[in-house]
């Protein structure tokens, strides 16, 4: 399934670059870095986070979340990282392979490699917190899937080169709802080393982390135990 998704995304951009060499400053090389980062983060999510994320609404609605609260580990980490999906691990390997191919084919420089190693954990964290934020309404509503569906749609913004959007939309998607921080802006920073982009990545990921943790605490306080 994921392989089909990755292939179709690659095919869309391959088709786009048949018509142009440059998408508002983004060449095919930069877009391939974007896709490589996106695939890597998405496969990480599918392997480590997906099962916990998808099952959380039913866990909360059925009152099973009580047992999560009683575990002697951090509740946040246990809620989302409680199941590893071995079948998705192959996707992770494939994504790493794609990144390596892109890096070799387009001759990644040492600075770009170092930048990637530094910025990737930040992008990964922003991605985790964004996904968690869209699942948190399950603590307040009966049908949280509407937000998850919205997240699935907004994911398309994360896979797009940031400069196709207007400055206002870029600001919203970079700082307030930082979908561009997942892959688009990190790819731009790796290629251009533009400090303004790094600032937006740092600000966007910090804000989403703080807000999601604040929302998580609110959600836990709002949760009414099954036995209460």
């Amino acid at each position: 399934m994921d392989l089909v998704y990755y292939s179709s995304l690659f095919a869309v951009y391959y088709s786009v670059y048949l018509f142009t060499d440059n998408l508002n400053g983004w060449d095919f090389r930069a877009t391939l870095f974007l896709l490589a980062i996106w695939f890597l983060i998405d496969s990480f999510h599918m392997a480590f986070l997906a099962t916990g994320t998808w099952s959380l609404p039913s866990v909360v609605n059925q009152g099973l979340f009580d047992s999560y609260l009683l575990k002697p580990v951090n509740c946040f980490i246990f809620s989302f990282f409680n199941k590893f999906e071995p079948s998705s691990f192959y996707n992770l390997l494939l994504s790493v392979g794609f990144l390596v191919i892109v890096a070799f084919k387009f001759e990644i420089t040492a600075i770009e490699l170092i930048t990637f190693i530094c910025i990737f954990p930040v992008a990964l964290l922003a991605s985790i917190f964004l996904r968690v934020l869209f699942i948190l309404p399950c603590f307040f509503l009966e049908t949280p899937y509407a937000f998850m569906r919205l997240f699935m749609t907004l994911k398309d913004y994360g896979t797009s080169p940031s400069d196709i959007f207007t400055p206002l939309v870029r600001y919203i998607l970079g700082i307030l709802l930082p979908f561009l921080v997942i892959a688009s802006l990190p790819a731009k920073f790796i290629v251009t080393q533009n400090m303004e982009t790094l600032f937006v990545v740092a600000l966007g990921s910090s804000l989403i982390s703080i807000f999601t943790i604040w929302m998580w605490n609110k959600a836990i306080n709002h949760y009414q135990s099954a036995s209460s």
Partner: protein
Amino acid sequence: MIFSITKSEIKRLFAYPLIFFLREFLPFVAALPVPVLLWQNATPSDTQVFWYFLFSMTAYQIFTPEPAYISREVYDGTVTRYFLYPHSFSSIIFSRYLGYLVCQLFLGLLFIILVAALWQLPVTLEGFLKFLLLTPFCVGLSFLLFSLVEAVTLWLEDGWTFRVILEVVAIFLAGRFLKLEHLPSIVEAVAQTLPFKFMAYIPSVALLNNLSWFEVSVITFQGLAWLLVLGYVFRLFLNEGLRHFSAFGS
């Protein structure tokens, strides 16, 4: 007491439209700008990009209503209730699909009217006639494609994967994220032959009057051929699946 009942009724009054807005309308509207901006930047000379994606995504939204899926009832075992009705199973699920389709059509038209209030629609009478002529094939083939995938659940525990694959394939081969003309020529030839294009591409180019009457007649025959083939496969598939299905209580 009265206050709490009134409060809960007001909450309910707003909850359903809000859930519909969040679940159906907002994701649909939010999905539109990405392909539009992508292709407007890639092909600045193409003035129909916005309208193409508006129509193709609206068509896809209308022709593939999510509640018409049967997998949940198969898993629950509640699908057995349909065997008690004096109609065939396929006719029941098709009529249910049509019911949802009417709702989606109404909302889709409402959305188009809203857009038309802001911009002038580039739809001519001729384009609209072509669209009307091809719509039965779009409806029938969208139903058959999704129902075939849903019927997999009569054998397998996980039908969701196949549905997602179909949705992803639709991005590419149905023209949800790109026009079929944008594909490399060999892939375009394949996409033009397969039935996926009836879910998004055909309704959109018909409305925009980008098809000649000759092309409409060829597509009509193509649609008819696919309807017969997929209809036959679906019938075989469903009969075999229902024989295989071990219902609750049996």
